[in-house]
């Protein structure tokens, strides 16, 4: 073991000295490789962080949402449906929710207007709490600026802003306007006894299928959207966006693989002669390959480290500026929220397998071909 370690140390020493001889070439290689790792890692980190955010949001969501459909489109649902749902065995609670969209002609943005959920203190009449994107979109010049919204009949209504939600909740609150029920009904001219949908809580989530079946018998015109279904939709959406970016990064990786293979297969006469010399003075094929593995580890490991750290900084510190439009989607009110780092060993291993292994393989094959020849032939 001691002998093996000393041998590896000697090989690593030689590799470092040899790499220093081709400093410019190796630095260029590490730079190109780092950009490829950075692109792939950014896509992975971004999508994983968005999934984590979405899962955190979903964890607090009700197990089921009930919507009324007419001609296949969502309509306001009557208050009687709430009582019908509460009567189903296994349902822990059902609350009517009031929310809707408001198109702001001033800036072309859509706001989500909702009534404070049950259990949460509602704003006073004429007061609202708003998401952080709204003051930006409206160009508020001072913190206590009121919010004027054009009411359903066409007149303007003034709201006092009690609170602006922070960026930590921006994923769900950036475009939000929260008001009390009376203001909401007045603003949209919505009669009492009608709700946008109904949030249902169940005692045992594993029973959700049975509860949906029972609810469907009571409310045949309704649509039942479970939390698991929403989760799957999010998952598909993020996977699709991640796929676009991964395809782009994949193309970059392919270009890099061609570059690496070209570099490796085009072993210069000098490199081949050096391998011949090393063999002539007593190195065997394994020694040469071990030395090249050290060199590959130095280049690909260094690039992996640089690319991964840069991707971490890009996604979690700089907000993923370069890829955000692809991965977050487009909106007038763009949520500006810090992503929580969500990196695991599997991600890093996958990244390593996608980047380090192809490079090492591309480099080692031609080296092995030269190194397994007689020293005399390799030198010629």
């Amino acid at each position: 073991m001691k002998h093996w370690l000393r041998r590896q140390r000697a090989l690593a020493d030689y590799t470092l000295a040899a790499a220093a001889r081709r400093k410019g070439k190796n630095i260029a290689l590490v730079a190109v490789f780092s950009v490829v790792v950075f692109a792939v890692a950014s896509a992975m980190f971004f999508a994983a962080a968005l999934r984590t955010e979405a899962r955190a949001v979903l964890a607090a969501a009700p197990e089921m949402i009930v919507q009324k459909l007419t001609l296949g489109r969502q309509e306001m649902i009557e208050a009687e449906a709430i009582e019908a749902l509460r009567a189903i065995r296994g349902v822990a609670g059902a609350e009517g929710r009031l929310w809707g969209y408001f198109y702001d002609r001033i800036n072309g943005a859509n706001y989500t207007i909702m009534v404070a959920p049950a259990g949460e203190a509602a704003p006073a009449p004429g007061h609202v709490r708003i998401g952080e994107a709204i003051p930006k979109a409206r160009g508020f010049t001072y913190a206590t600026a009121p919010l004027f919204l054009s009411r359903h009949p066409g007149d303007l209504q003034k709201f006092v802003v009690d609170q602006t939600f922070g960026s930590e909740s921006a994923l769900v609150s950036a475009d939000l306007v929260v008001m009390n029920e009376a203001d909401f009904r007045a603003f949209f001219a919505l009669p009492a006894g009608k709700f946008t949908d109904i949030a249902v809580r169940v005692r045992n989530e594993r029973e959700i299928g049975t509860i949906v079946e029972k609810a469907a018998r009571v409310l045949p015109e309704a649509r039942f959207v479970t939390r698991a279904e929403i989760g799957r939709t999010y998952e598909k959406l993020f996977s699709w966006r991640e796929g676009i970016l991964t395809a782009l990064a994949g193309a970059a990786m392919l270009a890099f693989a061609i570059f690496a293979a070209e570099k490796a297969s085009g072993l210069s006469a000098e490199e081949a002669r050096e391998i011949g010399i090393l063999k002539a003075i007593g190195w065997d094929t394994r020694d040469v390959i071990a030395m090249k593995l050290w060199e590959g580890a130095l280049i690909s490991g260094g690039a992996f480290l640089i690319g991964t750290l840069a991707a971490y900084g890009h996604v979690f510190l700089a907000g993923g500026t370069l890829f955000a439009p692809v991965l977050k989607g487009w909106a007038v009110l763009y949520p500006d929220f810090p992503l929580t780092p969500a990196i695991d060993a599997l991600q890093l291993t996958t990244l390593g397998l996608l980047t380090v292994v192809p490079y090492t393989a591309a480099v080692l094959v031609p080296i092995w071909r030269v190194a397994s020849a007689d020293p005399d032939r390799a030198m010629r």
Partner: protein
Amino acid sequence: MITLQDVAKFYNEGRPNEVRALEGVNLALARGGVTVLKGPSGSGKTTLLSVIACMARPSAGRVAVAGEVVSSLPERYLTELRRTMFGFVFQRFNLIRGLSVLDNVLLPSVPLGGERGAVAARAMARLGALGLAEKAQMPVEYLSGGETQRAAIARALINEAPILIADEPTANLDGHLTGRFLEIVAGLKAEGKTVIMTSHDPRIWGAAGVDRVAVLEDGRVGAGGA
């Protein structure tokens, strides 16, 4: 110590550009002493050294080193022989550019995994004996012709190989440096090492320390004098 029996070496065998570098070579080299192979350019001297030093396999015939037939041994055994039995000084010395003299000298010891301090001390002692101690950290491309040759000799001897093989070692050296080289060879002979070299240089053939001169012509060893 080294015997060659009906050794032949062909390059590009069976192709229009086939070269018959050696044919029917029979040679016996005893332990110790200095042997010089002489012959015109293209007579197969370098190829013969490569075959003797297990760097090229013969196309036909047998090569035995210390009584063991090595011409059919697998590559890993040949590597072991190159490490332990032979030190090679190439015609153009073949030091690796960009590395220091010391790093070049240490190269053959890398696969052996010896204790670095001890190997480096041995290398420095060898460089000191060859008058290169103060150039140990200098990149080899800055050495003069004679210094390069001595660095190549130090590298060939770092693993204490009993046989030194040198291919045209004085081809690019002036008379003074050739004399210095012969002094080194005499020192190695005194250490009990076997030296086999090729040379065009009459000063080498006629040198006092040379025990045998074999003549190579058209890939065959002639009745060269001793």
